């Protein structure tokens, strides 16, 4: 091997200003200084302004009595005894409830429409396309106002409530339904449910073992459904016939102004829920469609050439792969739905923003604290979700590499 001779190299003298590291440090210091200065200015101004305006600061106000009422409360709350802190919890829970229910329904509707968009039926395809295009291109606020004012507004007054039977009433104050009251022998029902769950799990294991040994396959899904849902219902019916009633219902009755008793679902809640669900479903439909299309045709062809039926191909090959594509954007749709639930302010549903950033902010004037808390809550929800999603994604990714 040839030994290379050392050439007449210039000694490496370092020019300080051209070192990218030095430049990097300079730019970053500059940035830090600017940011700190901005924060400092904002903080001093805020302190000065607050002092001048004599606005109290600190989070002490959360302990003060709220003094106002809220139409939907999931925890016990009253204007007299409850604090701003409790009002905050009420608002937060209301946000979470409408988001959680919204997510469930939006997912179902979104998947249906997404699959409908790929249907071989021309009419189904076109109608679902129109649905998606229409809903996606009109502001959610407008849709909420539409549902609230135009659709739910004209419902009849309580005196002329629509009776839907079984103790369900519909009127401009919302949907009224029987409230279940649990008797002492409710444990029988609970046991039935538990048995159903355990039984279906056991069946699942058994079916798998059967398959491994004999190749026979059983309708696991159907049996599970039967055990989990059917068994408790059957038990309840038997109990009812036997005269022991584990659940009785508090039926809504007509009162002076409104129906009394029972359970009431506010029209604000319904409008918000319908709006969020139909709007988000349009986006989810697109996500689902893209996910299914992302699974290459080769995959279903390969499955077909192995002799799998179209249904099996879908279940065993296409959907598991599509789900990986679908889940990340689906999560961000869930987050959007949660964030969009803040539009509740426009139709008077007492969510976090309406209760806390609306009433509490106005009654206390402590804008900074209230805004910080509210944003913090949404941020926490978002960050938690993306944290969980990252873990999920990493797991999926590792499996694939």
């Amino acid at each position: 091997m040839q030994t290379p001779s050392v050439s007449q190299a210039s000694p490496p003298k370092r020019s300080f200003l051209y070192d990218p590291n030095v430049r990097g440090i300079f730019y970053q210091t500059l940035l830090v200084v600017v940011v700190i200065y901005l924060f400092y200015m904002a903080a001093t101004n805020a302190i000065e302004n607050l002092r001048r305006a004599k606005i109290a600061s600190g989070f002490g106000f959360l302990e003060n009595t709220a003094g106002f009422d809220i139409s939907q409360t999931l925890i016990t709350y009253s204007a007299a005894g409850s604090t701003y802190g409790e009002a905050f919890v009420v608002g937060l829970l209301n946000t979470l409830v409408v988001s959680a229910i919204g997510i469930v329904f939006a997912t179902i509707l979104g998947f249906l429409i997404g699959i409908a968009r790929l249907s071989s039926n021309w009419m189904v395809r076109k109608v679902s396309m129109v649905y998606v295009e229409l809903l996606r291109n009109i502001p959610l606020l407008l849709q909420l106002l539409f549902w609230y004012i135009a659709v739910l507004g004209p419902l009849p007054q309580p005196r002329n409530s629509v009776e839907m039977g079984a103790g369900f009433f519909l009127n401009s104050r919302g949907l009224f339904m029987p409230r279940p009251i649990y008797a002492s022998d409710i444990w029988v029902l609970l046991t039935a449910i538990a048995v159903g769950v355990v039984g279906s799990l056991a069946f699942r294991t058994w079916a798998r073992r059967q398959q491994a040994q004999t190749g026979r396959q059983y309708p696991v899904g159907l049996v599970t459904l039967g055990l989990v849902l059917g068994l408790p219902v059957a038990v309840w019916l038997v109990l009812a016939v036997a005269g022991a009633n584990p659940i009785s219902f508090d039926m809504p009755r007509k009162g002076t102004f409104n129906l009394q008793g029972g359970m009431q679902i506010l029209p604000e809640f319904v409008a918000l829920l319908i709006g969020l669900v139909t709007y988000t479903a349009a986006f989810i439909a697109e996500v689902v469609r893209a996910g299914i299309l992302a699974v290459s045709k080769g995959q279903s062809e390969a499955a077909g050439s192995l002799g799998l039926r179209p249904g099996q191909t879908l279940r065993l090959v296409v959907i598991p792969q599509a789900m990986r594509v679908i889940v990340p954007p689906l999560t961000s749709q869930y987050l959007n739905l949660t964030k969009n639930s803040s539009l509740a302010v426009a139709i008077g549903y007492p969510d976090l923003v309406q209760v806390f950033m609306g009433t509490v902010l106005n009654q206390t004037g402590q804008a900074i604290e209230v805004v910080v808390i509210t944003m913090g809550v949404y941020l926490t929800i978002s960050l938690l979700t993306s944290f969980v999603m990252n873990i999920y994604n990493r797991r999926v990714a590792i499996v694939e590499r």
Partner: protein
Amino acid sequence: MSTVVDTFRFVRNQQVEALPPPNLARGPIAWIRENLFSGPFNTILTLVVLYLLYVIIPPIVDFVFVNAVWTGTDRDACRAETAGHPVGACWAFVIDKINYFVYGSYPVTERWRVNIFFALLALGVVWLLWLRAPRRDLGAIYFFWLFPILSYILLTGGDADFSNGFWLGFIVLSALIVAGFGAAARFLNAPVKPAVLIGAGIVAVIGITLALLEADWGLQPVPTALWGGILVTLLVATVGIVFSLPFGILLALGRRSKLPIVRMASVIFIEFVRGVPLITVLIMANTMLPLFLPGDMTVDRLARPLIGVAFFASAYMAEVVRGGLQAMPKGQYEGAMSLGLNYPQMMILIILPQALRIVIPGIVNTFIGLFKDTSLVAIVGIFDLIKTIEASRIDPNWAAPTISYTGYAFAALFYFVFCWGMSRYSLGVERRLATGHKH
């Protein structure tokens, strides 16, 4: 035809000509059978959908067209008992109020200024979005610099009053900046002249901008409290896009920077903004912005949501741009570096033009979202289209049962036309990009 069943050797001497497809079942009936009734399940689906359409469509048509009222000057025209027939949409109401919906309370005699603003906006949008338009670089300068200034002057009347010492201070500051650029160049052993020129250029642009804003153009000032309707809706959306694109690009570059603090700052900003609902940003801009400014400084009521929207849109835009940057093959960076281009040159000449092109659909989609979100400024009391409709629908003069529907239908139509148009456009671009980069 030669048959080769069981022939081991075979040579075809005549080519079989391409034949038209056999007369497969064609025509509308076959089409319907194939697409609507191919099997029991599909047939049921078709029937269900048909029934749904039957339930939904006729009432809508009745409402929008058949029973609609097109002329009239007050509520009597749109009340069934006075009009003497069932009343659907009350378009007469929209027609009567249309000027309010478009201009809000903008003084009648000055509305031509708003019309010019609309025209300028249309010009800018077409220039930028039409991929074959000439000199799109000039278009960008127009849209991101000239157009905002012109709009400001037109809409407010210009004539911003700076205090007396302002220009003196400005001149001193400019001199300092130019000198600073020169000194820095000398210090860094770079040619001084271009550095000074760059400094002077920056100063000149700022100076011209400010001078244009201060000049008295003889226009009657119109306070923002009078603006309203579609004017405000478009304004909020425009401000969103004009600011979010440059800031979004900066943030995206920041997020991909190798410098940890820069990257962290960008990430924090982006994730923070994307993690909270727009309404909270708007409420924050509305109630907290004044607190953060020195005591005697105030921000215009309309400007506050604009600032909020600009921030909000920047974060979303940053993520879109980042997608584009990430999609750029590494080879492009390397090609540029191996030619000796430095970082800004590489970004401006090579990477960004391509990356932004790739993400035009993403940008347009963000813009659609932004455009829809502008409706939220109504919640913080800005008179955008929705708010003007809300205000009009409670006008006792027009109190009639279908007024609300009609107003919302009008707004829905307005938003739908814009958003749907844009989404078609972005689909078109996407398709063109997918078929390759050929010009």
